[in-house]
């Protein structure tokens, strides 16, 4: 149990790095227009450059936080393996696409439109839509794959 804290920190760090790289590459290669750093950062600032920097920090913090949630699951299940982590990542990926970004983020994001919003005087960020498909037809699958990879990394590194 003494190694769970540092291993979770390391697992969360590498998992988040991989997830970020996968999604960034997918975006640059034309598979999706999802930009998590932009989406997260614009919750606190309208400045594009600052938003992306803040967004990456938010994303990193969230990645570390979820690693601890994964570690808690590993403790409950009594084991920590890459495939268990990947399975958790799959659930996590579906949750992010179907609920977290699709429903919760528009509800709290001060600059994001919802399906009910009409064009008005305030700049709106394009809402993600169901499974974030507004950002590209491959977005859900890419996001799922990236989260499975994240979970596998966390599961492989965390020691309970």
């Amino acid at each position, binding site marked *: 149990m003494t190694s769970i804290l540092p291993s979770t920190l390391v697992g969360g760090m590498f998992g988040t790095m991989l997830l970020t790289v996968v999604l960034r590459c997918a*975006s*640059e290669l*034309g*598979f*999706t*227009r*999802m*930009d998590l750093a*932009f*989406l997260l950062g*614009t919750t606190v600032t*309208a*400045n*594009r450059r600052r938003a992306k920097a803040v967004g990456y920090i938010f994303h990193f913090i969230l990645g570390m936080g979820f690693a601890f949630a994964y570690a808690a699951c590993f403790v409950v299940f009594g084991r920590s393996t890459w495939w268990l982590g990947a399975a958790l990542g799959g659930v996590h990926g579906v949750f992010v696409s179907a609920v977290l970004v699709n429903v919760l983020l528009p509800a709290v994001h001060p*600059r994001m*439109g*919802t*399906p009910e*919003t*009409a*064009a*008005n*005087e*305030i*700049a*709106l*960020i*394009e*809402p*993600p839509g169901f499974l974030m498909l*507004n*950002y*590209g037809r491959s977005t859900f699958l890419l996001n799922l794959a990236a989260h499975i990879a994240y979970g596998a990394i966390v599961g492989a590194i965390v020691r309970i």
Partner: protein
Amino acid sequence: MRVNGYAPIEDYALIGDGRTAALVARDGAIDWLCLPNLDSPSTCAAILDADRGGSFELCPDAPFTSVRQYRRNTNVLETIFTTDGGSVRVTDALTIPNGELAPMRELARSVEGLSGRVPMRWRLTPRFHYGLGRVRQEWRCGVPVATCDSEAVAASSWNAGAPAWSGESVGARFDVDAGRHALIALSAAYAEPLVLPGSRDVRQRLEDTAAFWDRWTSERRYDGPWSDAVLRSALVLKLLIYAASGASVAAPTTSLPEAIGGPRNWDYRFCWIRDSNFLIDALLQLGCYDEARSLFWWFMQATALTLPQLHVLYKLDGGIGVTERPLSLAGYRASQPVRIGNGAFEQAQHDVYGCLLETAWLFSEGHQPLDSDTGAALARIADYVCRIWRLPDSGIWEVRNGPFHFTHSKVMCWVALDRAVRLARRGEVPDRHLDRWTSEAAAIREYVDRECWSPELGSYTRVAGSGDVDASLLMLPIVDYDDAAGHRIGGTIDAVGRSLRRGDFVYRYRADDGVPGGEGCFLNCSFWLVSALARAGRLDDATELMERLVARANDVGLFAEEVDPASGAFLGNFPQALVHLALIDAAFACHAARTQVSRQ
């Protein structure tokens, strides 16, 4: 006005934001727009394929006439459409971000009723990836959106009708009464979610953009003749500079033909080292120190990977892979092929070494001394020039049947070594090889004076030992190769005039260059003639020619690469940086000559 859907090239005006640019036709159609950057694939390319290219139309829905101008000292375009029922003013600009959350790129089109009631219509047909992308038509928050892979555009509109998708186009009809306003904003995103702007923000950005351009222009300094043309040229050059890197495209378009229906159609959305010395000179003379510094450092960074060898052209991000390939577009008035990329990047063109060293010299003279790393890089280039100047090359005009021993290339090699010597004597370039550079420069001069001079013509020649001339020889006095007032330069100016001049225009050369098809007169050559005449002391001739040339600009002061000397129609990519650079140089040359005469 249009022939088979194609407007004359001179009917276009350019708007931009330092990242991308759009061509707006006199009838209100935006027929060229690349997103998100100047060198990205097109979203609107009706200028290259009226049926499949894509466009953004906005005009009266009734017969109309139009006049237009840039809002004074800005790159904000105002077109006044007049119909039987009234008139409206359409203001077009690619807006510049102002701190509020703005779309990645935003094209604002504001409509203001001036008199009566005018029925209007707008129609956006986005065709991503040069018309080859698969476009999805969707809606977000009541706004029509088109997406394709990483790209998306949204057409937000206020008081401009109820937009509806019809096939691959979205648009609406609406009426504008005097004193009423409508607004349409095209917002674009690449690899990120769209930002759908509010009308107040778009209007504010439109005004802020006009204020930015006005402020930028007011900081330029030029009190000589043709100041309107010089400042307009400066504004054009600013639009052609890609703000993210400081590099400048030769023109924002590809494949506008050098002859209607001909095959000489090239992609100019790259940065040519050849333009560097003119560009740095113009920027420094106009007081654009930030742009000059950015451009110079971009040149030194872009060339760092290939030193001491230089490529002819570079991508705006400094890359060198610009493989040429044809697109399946119809071409401007059936001028095939439409090309992207540029095969000239593989050529050996020795004049670029002189251009870069001249650029460094001008930068050092006009702004700030070079640092030691830059000095060391330039010394390596000078050493390399000593090794290659005896070899033939493809020359300034990028002929495809070479290589030849072009006189202009030899002279520019001399310029490279001459400037290296000057910089070494000032301690800005290592002087270990100073003696070698000096002796090789003398050898080049001896070669040019012996092999590239024709006593029969009384002129320098196009190629060593040939009996013809080339408009590039007009650059010799511009780069201080010879005594500008001497008989050799004077004879060369006369010979170029006899052989290549047609009215006010000058052909590049009259020789086979390995590319089929004809071409017009290159307008930069006409302005080089003005510069050469002014430097040779023929101020009256230079002034008269300059007056007539400036009057040949289109209605908003822009020039294409070439002109058909018979009809005066523009040809080639538009607007072209080198032509506007040559105009600025010619104006400064005339101003300097006039000042010198008045002092005497």
